[in-house]
């Protein structure tokens, strides 16, 4: 069954497995930290972008996998964060960088709140999908005509920030320092989202995903919790965008189009939307495929398309769903316990 069930909360997964999982995670984080000394700058950049895509995909999957809502214009939230941070650094808003990140996340959440309040009763299904696409397209048009945001050319020459904590300064402008900051930020965001999904709030979201009517009849204010989920998701997507701007040092309209909106969807489906970790695994897999097919223009699109068809037809629960099935088979249980 899906990892998304309350298995962990009920201690159904054995202690050894949990410890093994935590160990793997720790090793991964250490490797990510050491990566600047292990790989060339090109690959390091790809890893950095993968971390950002992973956070972005996690934000989308909080909606889809855990609350049962689908946003097809999630790039809009990402762009809010990216453009705000880009502008804040480039035009020097006199805000500490951590505050810039916080404001970016808050902006994303506020836009989600506004959409939620306007569409409170219809925050489901095709209506939300179309609404998010429309708003994102509108945003792209507005940015395209804003000279301060670089119009069609994008906002370039974004400087990397210096974090001033009063007692000491962390200079992220040199070498791989920003990358290391990105690793820390990603770990913190992933931890926060893990908490959301596995907390009382996450259980409420899942109940709404399973059956909104039944949820109402256990006293859950469905509309309110859908908006809360949408706000956390929008805020996190904006945060992912905010983290991306200093890494790429340019923000362009490519990050606001519908193709950018499909990226977190593809990553979540590939990795497995029923699992919390699925979007991260999917992002990593996608980046790997892209990296190894980069020399063949057009091939990566075909590969990506082909893999998606296979995933949807053969393993609708993605890589992690497939691995779970194999694991159960290896344990000789044939199916669920």
């Amino acid at each position, binding site marked *: *069954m*899906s990892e*998304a*069930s*309350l*298995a*962990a*909360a*009920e201690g*159904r997964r054995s202690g050894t497995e949990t410890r093994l999982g935590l160990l793997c995670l720790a090793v991964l984080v250490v490797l990510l930290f050491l990566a600047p000394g292990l790989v060339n700058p090109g690959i390091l950049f790809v890893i950095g972008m993968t971390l950002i895509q992973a956070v972005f995909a996690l934000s989308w999957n909080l909606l889809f996998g855990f609350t049962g809502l689908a946003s097809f214009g999630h790039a809009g939230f990402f762009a809010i964060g990216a453009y705000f941070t880009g502008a804040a650094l480039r035009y020097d808003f006199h805000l500490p960088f951590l505050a810039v990140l916080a404001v970016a996340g808050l902006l994303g959440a506020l836009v989600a709140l506004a959409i939620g309040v306007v569409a409170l009763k219809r925050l489901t299904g095709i209506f939300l999908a179309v609404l998010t696409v429309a708003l994102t397209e509108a945003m792209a048009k507005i940015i395209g005509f804003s000279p301060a945001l670089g119009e069609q050319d994008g906002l370039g020459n974004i400087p990397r920030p210096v974090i001033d904590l009063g007692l000491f300064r962390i200079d992220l402008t040199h070498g791989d320092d920003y990358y290391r900051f990105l690793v820390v930020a990603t770990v913190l965001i992933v931890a926060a989202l*893990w*908490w959301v999904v*596995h*907390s*009382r709030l*996450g*259980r*409420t979201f*899942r*109940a709404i995903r*399973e*059956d909104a*009517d*039944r*949820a*109402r*009849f*256990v*006293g*859950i*204010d*469905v509309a309110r919790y859908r908006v809360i989920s949408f706000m956390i998701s929008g805020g996190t997507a904006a945060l992912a965008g905010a983290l991306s701007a200093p890494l790429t040092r340019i923000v362009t309209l490519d990050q606001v189009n519908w193709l950018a909106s499909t990226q977190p969807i593809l990553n979540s489906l590939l990795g497995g939307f029923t699992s919390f970790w699925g979007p991260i695994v999917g992002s990593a897999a996608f980046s790997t495929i892209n990296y190894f097919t980069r020399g063949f223009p057009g091939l990566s699109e075909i590969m990506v398309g082909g893999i998606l068809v296979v995933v949807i037809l053969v393993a609708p629960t993605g890589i992690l769903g497939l691995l779970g099935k194999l694991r159960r088979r290896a344990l000789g249980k044939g199916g*669920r*316990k």
Partner: protein
Amino acid sequence: MTGTPLLTATDLRVSYGAFEVIKGVSLSVDAGDALAIIGPNGAGKSTLFKALTGEISCRSGEVRFLGKDVTALPAHLRTAEGMGRTFQVSRVFLELTALANVIVALESRQRCKKRGQGRWWRAAPEPALVEEAGHLLSQLGIAHLRHEVAATISHGDRKRLELALALALDPLILMLDEPTAGMAPADRMHIVDLILSIRAEKGVAVIMTEHDMDVIFSISERVMVLNYGEVIAAGTVDEVRNSQTVREVYLGKDMYHAEG
């Protein structure tokens, strides 16, 4: 017992478009009462249920719960006030385990009652709630299924789980929409026993719709007969059983006269 009835509906009217489905129905249920609403298919039983629980809004009329006007209150707030409900085709949170289903309901109750959650930063459910959920499951005879995912448990057990969800919020009234629909006769009687024991233990009032007369007669003291959105008879089980109009509706007019 105070003078105020638990639940009253006054001249409820519900329309789907131009078509009036409920044409001025009134009813009253006291604490601990059991009322069965019967009637042929399409009589408006389920619609009346939805109007009482707040799933659909009424065109006119008034619903009062504990003396308070709840006509404009959405379903989740009526639930918080103490109206529990089950569905004709049982509805539970399919991908969650039986235990998790009940935990979600208990956590919602905590929220409804504005009871703070101790140690909110802990992601796992509170041990006290897990224990209470387990207790509720064993009360309904499905403790052995606690770690089963709801989608994999049988029809009858799912009905029990749904009852557990409704009971988790300490309801004052249980609204049961065909509690034994689609069940084997033996299973039916289990559910009846269960409902009777819940009533005996917690003094919960019950409103139910049902087709099976044995089930109705074992649970309810009072019966209301609905036909084409109107109440055509109401009273004790015996009164309704002997009513001429009810016989006509159920058996057909001609048949009734032929029998004679």
